[in-house]
């Protein structure tokens, strides 16, 4: 009986039961029919000491092997500055709920306001919400938001070059929402914008066009003139990009996007086997009242001080209930703090440098791998930042290469087909690590699959 998380002494329990006029703890459940009561106990182990729990986790952790990471495909291994976990683990931030009481939640409200400001700067758009779950759901919410803004229009055109994981999530949400999703074909690894033009021509039911740059293959898409075409068809343009790349690449706002949504994990958040990450969504002022989720705004308090509150709440699920176009409630608040601190650490110069170092490493690796003769670039004429798609020409299967790299502690990249490998280089990969990768490829090829 008893546990270190429960303050109750037997005397406390007796005193409290007496106040309640109830004979025993069990009598508090007299209204639960006997037929529903759990017979006996859960089939779970009894309570463990702290050391036993530590040992249990150590045993699990022994069966995981973080690798020198050359994989991307939507999950990016950028450097995490030490100050960030120090700040995000402060219990005043960590153990707070949603800032419903602004008088005692200015810490949370202010960092969300900072985050919103920084995201609008990165995306070149006017408004950001307080966060979404991840990049995939952020993009799905952007799609639903565009359809809601388009009133009777219920078709969305999505580029073939979008990350297939994102596409699967879009398809799921669209299916249940009755949204029709059509694919804009790709040509040589990039969206075929002539095809888009003909899909838009004369169509009256397209609510939005969704493109990504860098796209799934790491290719930079030239979106010149695309916004005009989309807007002429009275549709909205949604651009998705890994957040970190917006420190160097032309922003969705500069391309003329109405909405930008995607993944912000690339802002130094650990890979963490998929989460928690951070979805971002930003839009133009014209669409602000369609934006899902929470938004923090500035105002003044009764003493005239500049303070921050949750605002424009008429958009949200708890007010709109079944009229809501989004159901998001809990979001990824603490990860918004993570992003705000990361961007404060890097500033715009540091963020540019993250991209320039990563891109230099990637271009060097790509050139050297092509020189080995084992790989060629799948789309040699397309520009890329720090991720590129390789075509494998070796004798032994590519899967074997990836396996043997993993055995020596290296994640070679994400296999997108039997003979295609998507490779990513971040600033965390040293010159030595990149050279080592190249040497391994040569060795693998010359030894017929033995490293």
């Amino acid at each position, binding site marked *: 009986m008893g546990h270190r998380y429960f303050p109750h002494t037997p005397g406390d329990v007796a005193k409290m039961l007496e106040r309640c006029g109830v004979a025993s703890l069990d009598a508090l459940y007299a209204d639960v029919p006997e037929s529903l009561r759990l017979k006996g106990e859960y089939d779970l182990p009894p309570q463990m000491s702290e050391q036993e729990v530590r040992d249990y986790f150590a045993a699990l952790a022994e069966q995981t092997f973080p690798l020198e990471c050359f994989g991307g495909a939507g999950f990016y291994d950028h450097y995490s500055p030490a100050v960030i976990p120090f700040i995000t683990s402060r219990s005043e931030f960590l153990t707070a709920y949603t800032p419903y009481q602004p008088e005692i939640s200015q810490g949370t409200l202010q960092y969300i306001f900072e985050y919103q400001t920084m995201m609008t700067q990165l995306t070149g758009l006017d408004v950001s919400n307080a966060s979404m779950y991840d990049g995939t759901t952020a993009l799905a919410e952007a799609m639903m938001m565009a359809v809601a803004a388009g009133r009777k229009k219920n078709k969305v055109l999505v580029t073939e070059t979008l990350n297939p994981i994102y596409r699967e999530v879009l398809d799921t949400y669209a299916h249940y929402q009755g949204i029709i999703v059509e694919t804009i074909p790709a040509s040589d690894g990039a969206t075929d914008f002539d095809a888009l033009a003909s899909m838009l021509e004369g169509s009256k039911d397209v609510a939005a066009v969704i493109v990504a740059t860098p796209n799934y293959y790491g290719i930079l898409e030239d979106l010149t003139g695309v916004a005009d075409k989309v807007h002429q068809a009275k549709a909205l343009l949604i651009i998705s990009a890994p957040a970190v790349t917006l420190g160097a690449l032309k922003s969705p706002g500069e391309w003329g996007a109405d909405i930008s949504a995607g993944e912000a994990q690339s802002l130094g958040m650990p890979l963490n086997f998929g*989460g928690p990450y951070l979805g971002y969504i930003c839009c133009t002022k014209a669409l602000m009242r369609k934006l899902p989720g929470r938004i923090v705004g500035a105002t003044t*308090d009764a003493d005239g001080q500049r303070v921050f509150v949750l605002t424009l709440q008429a958009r949200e699920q*708890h007010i709109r209930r079944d009229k809501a176009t989004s159901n998001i409630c809990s979001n990824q608040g603490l990860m918004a703090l993570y992003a705000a601190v990361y961007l404060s650490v890097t500033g715009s110069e540091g963020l540019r440098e993250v991209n320039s170092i990563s891109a230099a490493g990637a271009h060097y690796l790509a050139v050297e791998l092509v020189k080995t003769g084992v790989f060629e670039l799948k789309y040699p004429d397309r520009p890329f930042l720090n991720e590129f798609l390789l075509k494998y020409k070796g004798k032994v299967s590519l899967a074997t290469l990836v396996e043997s790299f993993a055995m020596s502690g290296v994640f070679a990249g994400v296999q997108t087909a039997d003979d295609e490998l998507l490779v990513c280089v971040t600033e965390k990969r040293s010159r030595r690590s990149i050279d080592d990768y190249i040497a391994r490829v040569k060795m693998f090829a010359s030894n017929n699959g033995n490293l």
Partner: protein
Amino acid sequence: MNKKFYGKVIYDLSKEGRRAYSLPQNGLGDGLKDIPAVFLRSKAPLLPEVDEPTLVRHYNNLSTNNFGVDTGFYPLGSCTMKYNPKINEELCALPQWQGLHPLQPVETVQGALLAYDALQKALCEIGGMARFTLNPYAGAHGELTGLMVIRAYHESRGDAARVKVIVPDSAHGTNPASAAVAGLKVVEVKSLPDGTIDTEALRGLLDETVAAVMMTNPNTVGIFESAIPEIAEMVHACGALLYYDGANLNPMLGIARPGDMGFDVMHINLHKTFSTPHGGGGPGSGPVGVRKGLEEFLPNPRVVPIDRDADALFGATLKVEKSGKSLGRISAWLGNFAVELRALAYILTLGRDGLMLAAPLATLNANYVKESLRDLYKLPIDRVCKHEFVFDGLADKSTGVTTLNVAKRLLDHGFHAPTIYFPLLFHESLMIEPTETESLETLDEFIEAMREIAHEASEDPDKVKNAPLETPVRRPDDTAAALTPKVTYFEL
């Protein structure tokens, strides 16, 4: 919590030329120089320029104007603000988890998959379900996923006419919103004066157009729906499925399992019942469980055992795969993994005996507070409650002091406010959920504060109406905030 308002935004501290970054260098030059200008920004984003000491001090100062569970009592109804154990923070942040890329070879991530599977199985035991997915990121995401499971089930039977979800009028706001996003029409069923669902009214609404009935049990007024076996029977008789909103699962641990009550699909808020920190609004986690027969509809990807005969490398036993019958994908990967690890650590730490003690202590704490304040606050439903209960404002309404005023005055006493103006059943709802991790002394202090406020409301009502008076900031002007929205620093 520091009562002095810090108030600065990091941009206020920015000064050109300062920096807080130090990046690893690969010596390979500027990788951007060969990228055509059309792809590059013409203007750098305006981000703060600060040094590291300034940055750390800024965020530390910000945090001191924030109230968390570690600061004090946080009786926010329906949110289960229990203590967030510290060992969980350590165990979810091991480098072996943080460095794992989701798509790296499966034999190198077995420990992570084993953790996922262990939690999945524990939740099945606790929920009385056949299988859980941990992929949904939050409670509302779980609701949406659960409703998609239900739609996929009906679709698989060619039962396309089921387009409605019945939701009690006391339901959490996310329930109807999740139904709408899942493409279903919402029909409300009224509650009886005692706060429970009107089973006869429900019976009248059930027909072949109903896909599901969503309930939480105990409901949002903290009352156990004793008629649940009868409700389950009538819902199933009409061909619909019964959905359990797990926001209120905490008082039922070890007492009665949703699966045994007749629920077909459920979600659990790991950030409520299983103690993971709320992080100022997330990340949460909303695993969804289903009874036998519905497993195949759960979302992709899923963690499944490897066929023993296959060439499992390095003794791998689990893999990640997609199933064709699944409702589809609702997340990038396997959910908020680090949150899942915390919940697993919590379940192991409490064990079957600790879990079974948490529920009655949570219920005892709620009833103790209720019985200690019922003379001064209006108790619309006078029954033994479960983990939470609702007052309909002060008993004496003549002073004009509202629930909002009481909530704000509580802040001056060093407590977080309860949930207010929810559920919508009462005009002055004040919803209190103490949780099991609060001591008798803390509850007594809270009761004392609530009693003082009630007396103050009669003696000096203006003081209560102007509260809070001692917090870092005073009441903000919400109307002005919404009228001319200033949502970025450069609009200030």
